[in-house]
């Protein structure tokens, strides 16, 4: 059984619900356990190589560190907490340290869940599933697919514009106003070209009989089975079990009931 085989919409729903549930907890252990299980599932059932995974994951380690730093420096000290260290107006309590750590861990656990989705789902299948399971209007779904196909064309056009500027000897932007002018020099022709292409594409689609009717047939059918719901239930259970284990060892925190 591979993670690629599950229904993309349900996979996305699972990730979003897990993220929402994880946001209730303010202790570092719950997100850490979820992160460990999710990463393991990605390697074993997603056949994702560790190298590829860590390449995408590592920027978020940096983000998590800064997050912890921000949460420590600008922490909210609550009376009656154990003070670890004071320096001028700066007070570090044990509880705020734990909260900071939990926010950093939270970033990482969210990332692991997202990578599980992204590394095992094809964009086109996700859109087909959104159309077939979530009633996304075909007009919009095929519009997005057409737009998605424009990406390489836009890249090509960007290179052309850059080369054209170079040949004509446009100097490198240094000051802020020059940078803004440079932004406009690129953005406006790129967008104008893209919009003209979009209008031509729409005309071509309509001339081939695309009406955007909801009652259309699909060549590539995407279905939902009990296995997909089992996948959903499994990951919600992972988050809840992580919270349970955290509670067993006395770490669980729900932000003291205050928001």
């Amino acid at each position, binding site marked *: 059984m591979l993670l690629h085989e599950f229904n993309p919409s349900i996979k*996305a729903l699972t*990730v*979003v619900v897990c*993220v929402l549930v994880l*946001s209730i907890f*303010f202790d570092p252990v719950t997100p850490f356990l979820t992160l460990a299980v999710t990463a393991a599932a990605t390697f074993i059932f997603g056949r994702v190589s560790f190298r590829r995974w860590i390449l995408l*994951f590592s*920027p*978020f380690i*940096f*983000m998590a560190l*800064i*997050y912890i*730093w921000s*949460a420590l420096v*600008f*922490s*909210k*000290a609550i009376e009656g907490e154990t003070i670890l260290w004071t320096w001028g107006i700066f007070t570090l309590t044990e509880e705020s340290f734990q*909260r*900071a750590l939990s*926010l950093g861990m939270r970033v990482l656990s*969210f*990332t692991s869940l*997202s*990578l599980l*989705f*992204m590394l095992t789902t094809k*964009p086109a299948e*996700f859109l087909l599933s959104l159309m077939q399971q979530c009633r996304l*209007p075909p*007009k*919009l779904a095929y*519009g*997005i697919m*057409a*737009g*998605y196909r*424009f*990406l390489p064309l*836009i890249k090509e056009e960007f290179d052309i514009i850059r080369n054209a500027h170079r040949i004509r000897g446009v100097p490198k932007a240094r000051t802020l106003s020059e940078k803004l002018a440079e932004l*406009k020099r690129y953005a*406006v022709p790129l*967008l*104008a*070209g*893209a*919009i*003209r*292409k*979009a*209008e031509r*594409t*729409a*005309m071509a*689609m309509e001339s081939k009989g*695309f009406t*955007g009717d909801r009652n259309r047939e699909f060549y590539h059918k995407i279905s939902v089975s009990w296995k997909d719901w089992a996948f959903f239930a499994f990951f919600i259970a992972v988050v809840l079990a992580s919270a349970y284990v955290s509670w067993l060892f006395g770490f669980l925190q729900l*932000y003291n009931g205050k*928001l």
Partner: protein
Amino acid sequence: MLDKWKLREVIVLSVLAVVFAVVYLVFVQFGNVLYGMLGLIGYDLIFGIWFIVSIIAAYIIRKPGAAFLSETIAAAIEVMIGNAVGPRLILSGMIQGIGAEAVFAATKWNNYRTWVLIAAGMGSSVTSFIWGYFISGYAAFSPGYVTAMFFVRLISGALLAGLLGKWLSESLAKTGALSSFPIGKEIKRGKSDNGITA
């Protein structure tokens, strides 16, 4: 909502979303640098850029749903081309889009003057901040810092989404590429305020 849209408008909307999804991804890198230097508030400085497609799409297409859909699609495309924030980002996009859409809805999608565009950018700031408060645990930060973050984001939404979005849309209209949209006709007639030079 989409039944009243022409296919042409839907595809233009998607293409705008694709272009700005790339811009958004580039700005994530830029945001990370500011974030590294200034901490969490670094993001808020440039947060407005992530609402710009709402303003541009609404200003060009002028139909209910343009602000909301463009932001949502841009987020979805960002996920597809590799923002590791993942499917949660689509939810963030929806929430940002709702903020701008609510402002346009309050004018019954009839008024696209500068102040409305600025208010729409600020609307996204407000909804995205409420969402961030929950999802990123701002509750753990001191109230003064959170308030500062909020105001920085509000100003960023007004300038980088509202004003920059208006300026880009009008520069675009001047090329003639938008001649079949209301904004293109406005520019042609010279009705729009001409504070901007082409």
